[in-house]
């Protein structure tokens, strides 16, 4: 597919129809990046308490409008901040995220604290252990100041939740947030916290990141431990961060990545130094332009912005290389759904038997379908997966270093357009939303979502970089190079 050269929209002022976003608010520390906040706390320029108070103030003021929060204990958040400030005052060794307020999708278990997983069934569930990812963030000094809303049991890509309520997109509250890490996307974009964990089984980190104008990393399968994270589909589930910049994302990933005896699928492959690699030269790197599949059905306004982002890479000295995509990628979207429904049904089979009425109708129906999958069919799909990832890596990454694609092929839909419950005949529509994300889950490959502008309706638009297994560092390097040349990541929604 020949690339249609577009004007570099990212280097121009926003179109006249776009709402005027806030670029910076020097007076409010919540508008710092995570990296800036960590540096300011470490230097003593601002305290963790001041940072936390700024975030709590925004949570209190904005949550009625955007519905990002699943749970908030302000006294606990401030106690964490005071402990961080006390440790710094004592001269204790500080982690890379010391004193920085984060908040996470409400499916990461912390011992003794409710983790409702966006559901009624688990509204009082208090786990007896803490997720490995949270333990590692704790060790890096980060605060965990709130639980964030999510799709019921993480089973959905639009952000709708019929059980506990649907978060709103901070760029336009009539539009969907993307899911399933809906609250994570909303909270970080609304400057309620400096970063958040999401989880990605079919696009659930990258889609809310794209819809909310954030950076989202779906790491390689096995790169980050899922221990203590609510399972959806064990063959596909991944853990990763949503942040406002690539550097911020790398900071969190550096803290959480690596092997864990409690999650047997984690890899022994060493974790690279993501931060050290950020500023390395990108000249000569081969950025793949897919000749098929990833631009199927792409909206013209999305194509324009994504192609403009490719031009930025070209201007930075990258080589843009058209690359043929294996035909088999066309079925990966549906095969990912099959694995998710089947493994999800296995996880939920007991509650489906005893508490079916407590599920939302969408979740219940999709889980019921998974119960019907013949075991032999499921095993055949997993076998095909291994064949297809070999083929994909050989054909694509034998020619290029990364693959550059639109993240969503459509502008961010409205809540009404994307409401499965209210609209019959939406299976194809939902497949279209995850068209460019689910292949990465099926193949186990890393994918980085990077914002690249706004469509004429004022909603964010993003591209995706896909890489070889365990090549998160290269994706960060290229994403950071893009953000050094553009300023989309500095825009904030006006929620006043």
């Amino acid at each position, binding site marked *: 597919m020949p690339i249609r050269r577009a004007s570099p929209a990212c280097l121009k002022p926003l179109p006249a129809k776009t709402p005027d976003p806030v670029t910076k608010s020097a007076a409010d520390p919540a508008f710092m990046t995570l990296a800036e906040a960590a540096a300011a706390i470490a230097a003593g320029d601002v305290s963790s308490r001041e940072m936390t108070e700024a975030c709590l103030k925004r949570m209190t003021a904005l949550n009625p409008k955007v519905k990002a929060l699943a749970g908030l204990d302000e006294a606990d958040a401030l106690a964490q901040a005071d402990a961080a400030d006390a440790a710094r005052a004592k001269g204790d060794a500080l982690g890379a995220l010391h004193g920085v307020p984060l908040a996470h999708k409400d499916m990461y278990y912390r011992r003794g604290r409710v983790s409702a997983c966006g559901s009624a069934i688990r509204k009082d569930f208090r786990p007896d252990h803490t997720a490995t990812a949270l333990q590692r963030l704790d060790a890096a000094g980060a605060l965990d100041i709130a639980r964030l809303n999510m799709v019921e049991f993480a089973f959905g890509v639009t952000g709708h939740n019929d059980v506990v309520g649907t978060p709103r997109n901070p760029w336009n509250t009539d539009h969907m947030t993307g899911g399933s890490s809906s609250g994570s996307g909303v909270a970080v974009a609304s400057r309620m916290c400096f970063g958040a964990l999401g989880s990605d089984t079919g696009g659930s980190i990258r889609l809310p990141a794209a819809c909310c104008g954030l950076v989202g990393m779906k790491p390689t*399968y*096995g790169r980050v431990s899922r221990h203590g994270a609510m399972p959806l589909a064990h063959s596909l589930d991944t853990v990763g961060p949503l942040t406002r910049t690539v550097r911020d994302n790398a900071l969190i990933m550096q803290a959480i990545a690596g092997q864990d005896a409690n999650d047997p699928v984690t*890899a022994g492959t060493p974790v*690279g130094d993501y931060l050290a690699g950020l500023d390395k030269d990108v000249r000569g790197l081969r950025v793949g332009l897919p000749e098929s599949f990833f631009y199927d059905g792409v909206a013209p306004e999305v194509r324009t912005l994504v192609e403009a982002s490719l031009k930025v890479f070209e201007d930075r000295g990258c080589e843009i290389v058209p690359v043929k995509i294996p035909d088999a990628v066309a079925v990966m979207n*549906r095969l990912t759904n099959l694995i998710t429904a089947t493994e999800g049904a296995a996880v939920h089979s007991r509650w489906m038997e005893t508490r079916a009425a407590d599920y939302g109708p969408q979740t219940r*129906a999709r889980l019921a379908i998974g119960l019907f999958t013949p075991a032999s069919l499921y095993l055949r799909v997993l076998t095909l*997966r291994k064949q297809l990832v070999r083929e994909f890596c050989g054909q694509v990454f034998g020619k290029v270093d990364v693959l550059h694609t639109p993240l969503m092929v459509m502008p961010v839909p409205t809540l009404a357009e994307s409401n499965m419950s209210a609209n*019959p005949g939406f299976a194809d529509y939902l497949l279209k939303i995850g068209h460019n994300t689910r292949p990465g889950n099926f193949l186990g490959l890393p994918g980085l979502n990077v914002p690249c502008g706004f469509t004429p309706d004022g909603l964010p638009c993003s591209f995706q970089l896909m890489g070889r297994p365990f090549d998160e560092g290269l994706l960060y390097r290229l994403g950071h190079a893009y953000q050094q040349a553009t300023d989309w990541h500095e825009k904030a929604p006006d929620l006043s």
Partner: protein
Amino acid sequence: MTPSDTNTGDMSALLDWLDQFQGFRPEDVSLSDPAGASRNAARAGRDAARDLPFDADPTGFTRLLETLARKDA
């Protein structure tokens, strides 16, 4: 057809859902005979999987990804 907006007890909805997985639709199903349809679906799955190795261990998938990682990093 969207599974969520149909009756979950509706056999046709389930079969339509399977139909989305192209190439895997079981043949010879009858909506008037759900048990028979289930047997046929299982048989179709077995046929589809014939001659393929048992290879569904997710930890094995991680090991495969490690072999496909960049070698010059």
